[in-house]
């Protein structure tokens, strides 16, 4: 048997053109694309001629000399070569039975074959019942039963019998922690920027991060802004417990502490994640220790112009359930910010940007602003850095 097989192999190795006739157009594509590659490019010759490694052959086989080309009509050849490319066949008229013969060894054809002995009439997918589909795809149904009693039960502890339970313990715990149990630390300054506006220039920071596993995390956020010649207009820190509640969203709850314009503490509950069409969403409601209820909605969208140049529109809306005069907040729509930033990712983690942002105080909040002698609408030209690690 072995010598014969060797012969078959040798025969198959002859680059006989005849072997190709069956599948010169193997895929029979409805829309054949031109060959993407074979346009050879100039060889990138190694700069230094010494840069090469020539290992000795791992083995020199016995002098089994290459045979003379075998007769191309030898039936052994067609058996040793693969089945004719199936794509070339017209499946609307294809006889599956006949194909079995071509592909399979005679004598065993008709045994458990997953796809061929398919009765199309039975393939009613109307109900899209996949278990039914599986059954239909098998020559003989194989029951999907639970493991037999002989499979045993309990945790996998075979190695304890060899090495001892004590010796195995540490590696077993390490394995469990490494394969899915790790925790990660993330910090991001989404916006750390210098703001240029009429009259006074200012600064803004908007950072966040987390530490934790895939589902449960400690999440912190901080943002604030101000002018260089004044006390900060706003400054806040949030400490949140974050739990993944869906593939793309986290539920977050915790506390927020403001340091400007006034010290104030809030309870926070919010949702953060990735919405359809890839909008980064952060929505939260805040209940202050004074009993005031406010809410904030932030949305960002990364628009790649190139692999590294990214345009990021951004919107933020602040809402309030009541007037909070000491904070200059009026009930209803409080503020609206629309901005766009253009960043260049020198590395994924480090991206300087420029941008412009327009903010409006709305309704009663605008009135409070005018009372303080401020313009309720402000345009900022910004330069900043987005970074994370």
């Amino acid at each position, binding site marked *: 048997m*072995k010598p014969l097989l060797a012969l078959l*192999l040798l025969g198959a190795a002859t680059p006989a053109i005849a072997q190709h006739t069956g599948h010169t157009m193997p*895929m029979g*594509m*409805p829309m054949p*694309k031109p*060959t993407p*590659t074979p346009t*050879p490019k100039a060889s990138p010759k190694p700069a230094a001629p*010494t*840069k*090469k*490694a*020539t*290992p000795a052959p*791992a*083995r020199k*086989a016995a002098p089994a000399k290459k045979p003379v080309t075998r007769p191309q009509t030898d039936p052994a050849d067609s058996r040793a070569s*693969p089945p004719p490319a199936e794509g070339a066949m017209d*499946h609307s008229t294809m006889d599956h039975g006949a194909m079995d013969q071509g592909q399979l*060894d005679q*004598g*065993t054809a008709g045994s*458990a074959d*997953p*796809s061929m002995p*398919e009765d*199309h009439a039975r*393939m*009613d*997918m109307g109900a899209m019942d*996949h278990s039914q589909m599986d059954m239909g795809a098998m020559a003989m149904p194989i*029951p*999907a*039963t639970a493991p037999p009693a*002989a499979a*045993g039960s309990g945790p996998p502890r*075979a*190695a304890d*019998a060899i090495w001892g339970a004590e010796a*195995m313990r*540490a590696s*077993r715990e*390490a*394995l469990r*922690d*490494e*394969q*899915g*149990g790790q925790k*990660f630390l*993330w910090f991001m300054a989404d916006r750390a920027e210098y703001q240029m506006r009429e009259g006074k220039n200012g600064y803004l920071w908007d950072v966040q991060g987390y530490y934790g596993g895939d*589902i449960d995390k400690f999440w912190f956020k901080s943002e604030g802004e101000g002018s260089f010649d004044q006390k900060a207009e706003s400054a806040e820190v949030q400490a949140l417990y974050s739990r*993944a509640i869906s*593939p793309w969203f986290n539920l977050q709850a915790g506390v927020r502490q403001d340091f400007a314009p006034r010290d104030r503490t809030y309870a926070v509950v919010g949702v953060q994640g990735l919405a359809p*069409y890839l909008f980064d969403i952060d929505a939260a409601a805040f209940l202050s220790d004074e009993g005031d209820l406010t809410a904030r909605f932030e949305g960002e969208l990364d628009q790649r*112009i*190139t692999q590294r140049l990214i345009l990021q529109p951004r919107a933020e809306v602040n809402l309030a359930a009541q007037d909070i005069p000491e904070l200059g907040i009026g009930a209803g729509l409080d503020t609206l910010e629309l901005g766009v930033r253009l960043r260049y990712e020198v590395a994924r*983690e480090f991206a300087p940007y420029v941008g412009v942002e327009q903010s409006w105080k709305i309704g009663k909040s605008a009135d409070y602003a005018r009372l303080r002698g401020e313009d309720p609408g402000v345009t900022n030209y910004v330069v900043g850095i987005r970074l*994370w690690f």
Partner: protein
Amino acid sequence: MPALDRRRFLHASATSLATIGVMSSVPAWARGASLTGGLMQQGFDEVSGATIDLTIGAGPRSVQGRRGPGIAVNGSVPGPLVRLTEGSPVRINVTNTLDADSSIHWHGLLVPFQFDGVPGVSFPGIKPGQTFTYALPPIRQAGTYWWHSHSDLQEQAGHYGPIVIDPAAPDPVQADRDYVLLLSEFTSLMPHAIMDKLKKGEGYFNYQKTTWTDDYPLSGADRRMWAKMRMMPTDILDVTGSTYTYLANGFGPKEGMEFLFNPGERIRIRVINGSSMSFFNVRIPGATMHIVAADGQNVRPVPVEEFQIGTAETYDFIVEPTGEAMTIVAESMDRSGMAVATLASRPGARAPVPALRDPPLLTMADMGMSGMGHGGMAGMQGGGGAMAGMDHSAMGHGNTDSATIPAMTTASEPMGGMDMGGMNMRDTSMLPPDVKVGPGLDMVAMNPVDRMGDPGIGLAGLPHKVLTYKDLVALEPNDDLRTPSRQMEIHLTGNMERFMWSFDGKKFSAVSDDPIRFANNERVRVKLVNDTMMAHPIHLHGHFFELVNGSPADRQPQKHTVIVQPGGSAMFDLTADEPGDWAFHCHLLYHMHAGMFQIVTVAGAPDTPHDERGGESE
């Protein structure tokens, strides 16, 4: 003087390669000395015999002038070719000089489970400073395999090498020369830094994303559909050529890896994908490769012009090179880079290296909607996004045929301009009850057809022959022809955005005490359903399973690793006749590390210590 150092190092490397077979004296690294010149050797030597000594050490690595962290075995990356003989026992003493635990797993070898080399499953691992002896009984197989660390992320740093087992009987595959081509990656990043970036930065390593200025054949509707799904059609590989330099036997594409031949000779190349995160498209422009073995097991020869090799798979092929030289191209599946070697009729001979081809895009089939993208689905467009417009008979037809004709399910038109509005990409009611639905599952394949007839992402519809699993037919008949007594389904689940990966929605950290159990000698049909848009190379330790690929029952090809194409399924028949606990996992290193790992327990393991237990020694 980096240049000088470099030249000296290359010289040393060439010298050691020239002395293969005569090396018997104990080199410095094996005596505990620091690794040569501070830099690890590229390329490997060979170790063989009844007793083999391997030493694991850490140090800097350099490829094409880039430096990075390295872990070498016997001072080189890849580590030495472990040459074994079928029928002969071998003792392999592994010394760990790292300051962390280490291990060696013999990938594809049938060994007693306690010597399989997975810390926490088969043994406690090798502590720093310790020597562990793998006392392997007479080897029961022949062919091409490999070894690698199963500790932490050490494999990425270079802790791997080839295994060749010479058959006891004459090899049915005869060749004039016999070479190993081990494909892997080099990165200047620490392995844990890669894991970190994968977790935090969506698509961190992908610099082939869709943009306003790209050339991808996607319509505006296609792009909106992908954005709506919160997925990327360019999510082909998680880690790419943006950090990886792809290696042929440890050498970068500009470092001139070459295999010599004389005109007219038959060359056997044993291709091992020893990478951490890469699939490769292998081809030799102008030549036909005759695939003669898959995962170490001989198959009936299949002439192909190209084949895709998943992480941890091996393929042996025969080629008869012509001309002065031919280029072996191993292009990463996302086409962000390539490993290159040359078949050279004289040292220094070179053939042109083809340019990288355009990056591929995921298709309807990759989204788990095989057969829905053509024919009767035309009625869906503008159908208010409802499934009502679907022609179900056409879909059923697609289901049958798509298993046979990859070109049709993965037509080159990526989306066919389909309006996917309202289609539920995560219909969890279609999942079996043992799949946990949670944040770790972002998609459910709607029609997960058998995709073993698919040549792999980006290779459908090429004008030349590309290997598929359906081409593989075992050369020798299989010994267990029983019909499986039961079948089970395992879902491959994940969340691209959060970089969570698991089986049945449960990370290993959640099921470490709840293994997949088989009775001893039980024969089971296992269906793997891929509910993600990535291809996963699934590896079972300690066994070969038979792909249910349409071959006759007694000729189903035996493999240790099977690629499950995105949104599709693959079936194998397993005879669970190797008692003990075995790792079962996705062989993409960072997927495994994220939780896509389980333990398979085959009942009947010895409850008394093995006679020849090997193990620790001083």
